[in-house]
């Protein structure tokens, strides 16, 4: 055959490399998607077994407040009311976000509006370093500092929602602060100049212009911090007291979804009701992290529309 014709019809080395490279990178991305789907499938199939296989009523599971999976109640149904854990999880999450928000937003305003030089030199590196501190270290500090402190002031054991709130507050503070800084920095400079030119003071500019236009970004930061607090397991488990009871006050031992999971999964037999209800809690955790995700997307879309 004519060598020119042959070289024209044959695939070049380049196109073979291209095919192979594209295929390999496509496999990598497929793998990640498969992992996500597998996580959902397996956790859901285990978690739903409580309701389909063990015939636990979903409403009872979500609203009853007695958690004692190995004991059956008067009607012969296992006592698996997850309300104490759900309340515990939401309480520590919301309280820690409430405490952290003013600090984070205030710190972020200081870094971007009041004293950028000092803020960027001191506050920013410190918060960035603290984002990386492992959660067990926060748990250990909570155990050795926060719990005795709470015990000294409020009495009791010191373990409970309040100690959990303190630990989570310090834990999510760096994350929320640095995300709020990004949000404030994204506000165009001419917004501030326009406001100052109209005769507004610095605080009026911050309050009426900068904060207003950075609201979606700051909300995203807060929801992100809440998602982190909600899913945090070990640091909370170490200071919350691990009693699956309805929290009557902030300093009595309580528990969260994650703390019950960490304590329980190793002590139960695969496929038993006691184990399945734990997977239901994991499923609940998974769904909540989805909700937080959707919330962040929703806020992002709303914020984007305004511009």
């Amino acid at each position, binding site marked *: 055959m004519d060598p020119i014709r042959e070289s024209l019809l044959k695939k070049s080395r380049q196109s073979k*490399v291209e095919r192979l490279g*594209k295929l390999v*990178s496509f496999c990598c991305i497929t793998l*990640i998607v498969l992992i996500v789907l597998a*996580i959902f499938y397996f956790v859901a199939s285990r978690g739903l077994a409580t309701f389909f296989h063990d015939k636990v009523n979903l409403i009872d599971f979500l609203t009853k407040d007695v958690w004692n999976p190995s004991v059956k109640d008067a009607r012969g149904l296992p006592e698996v009311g997850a309300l104490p854990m759900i309340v515990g999880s939401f309480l520590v999450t919301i309280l820690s976000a409430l405490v952290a928000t003013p600090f984070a937003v205030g710190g972020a305003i200081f870094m971007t509006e009041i004293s950028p030089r000092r803020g960027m030199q001191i506050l920013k590196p410190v918060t960035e*370093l603290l984002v990386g501190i492992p959660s067990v270290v926060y748990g250990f500090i909570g155990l050795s500092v926060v719990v005795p402190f709470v015990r000294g002031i409020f009495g009791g054991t010191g373990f409970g929602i309040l100690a959990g709130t303190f630990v989570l507050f310090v834990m999510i*503070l760096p994350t929320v602060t640095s995300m709020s800084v990004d949000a404030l920095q994204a506000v165009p400079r001419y917004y501030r100049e326009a406001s100052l030119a109209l005769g507004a003071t610095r605080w009026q500019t911050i309050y009426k212009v900068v904060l207003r236009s950075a609201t979606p970004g700051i909300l995203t930061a807060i929801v992100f911090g809440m998602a982190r607090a909600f899913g945090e397991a070990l640091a909370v488990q170490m200071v919350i007291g691990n009693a699956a009871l309805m929290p009557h006050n902030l300093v009595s031992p309580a528990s969260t979804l994650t703390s019950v999971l960490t304590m329980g*999964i190793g002590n139960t037999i695969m496929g038993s009701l006691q184990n399945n209800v734990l997977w239901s809690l994991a499923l609940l955790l998974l769904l909540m992290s989805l909700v937080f995700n959707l919330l962040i997307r929703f806020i992002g879309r709303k914020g984007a529309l305004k511009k």
Partner: protein
Amino acid sequence: MNVRRQDKIATVVLYLISGTIILILAALLLYILAAGLPHVSWHFLTSPARAFEAGGGIGIQLFNSLYLLVLAMLISMPVSLGAGIYLSEYAKKNWRTTFVQTAIEILSSLPSVVVGLFGFLIFVVQFKFGFSILSGALALTFFNLPLLTRNVEESLASVQGSQREAGLALGLSRFETVTRVIVPEALPGITTGMILGAGRVFGEAAALIYTAGQSAPALDFSNWNPFYIASPLNPLRPAETLAVHIWKINSEGIMPDVAAVSAGASAVLVIVVLLFNLSARWFGKWLFKKMTGGD
């Protein structure tokens, strides 16, 4: 109250808030180091832990953490590189790409305890790897993949389009352009992200409790054959890491010097993570200088 006074008050309040933040964060760091460093010695870093008597170290746990880190990074680096390349270079803007990006975002926001439980279900129970380094490394990979992938994607996307055009104009295929031109250009960013990811993996505990296990059997550091049961390199042995160790001794509370050991271990953990963070910045800058030829 006039606006000037409001402005003054607000400024003072903001100063106070920032001062409090710095105070809290500095006290935290100082406490960890001050409480922990007196307990850190060569003996502490190298000797095995003791369950019922004082004077134990964290030698095996430290080695386990490092080994697990290396394995997890070895698995997750190529996968995240491939996935990042696909997302940044090949993916078209359509619903499938949006779906993939959503999936990655969801994976990165999953609580690590859920990832750990999934690893437990799949590797420990279904595949019968048992509580092992391998199960732990794979769980850590799941935990690490989304963040690394996003980092690679962003680093690649920040390379200018003209570089791609130049590569294609020289007759390179698209993939060769990526591997020979774009990836080297984006290398500083990618490396920084990988080192930060390694720091995160080093401190992770919740994903490891039910995958790598909570026991650290004695190791024979003279036998490095990976198939020997007490070999440090055996990937199928249970391996309690440093972070898991801190959690476990505190929740059991039977070790007499638990406070001292956990303070020392926390200090070591924090110092290593800080080293990772600092070296990530420094190394990224150095690499950038080196590859761009001067400042």
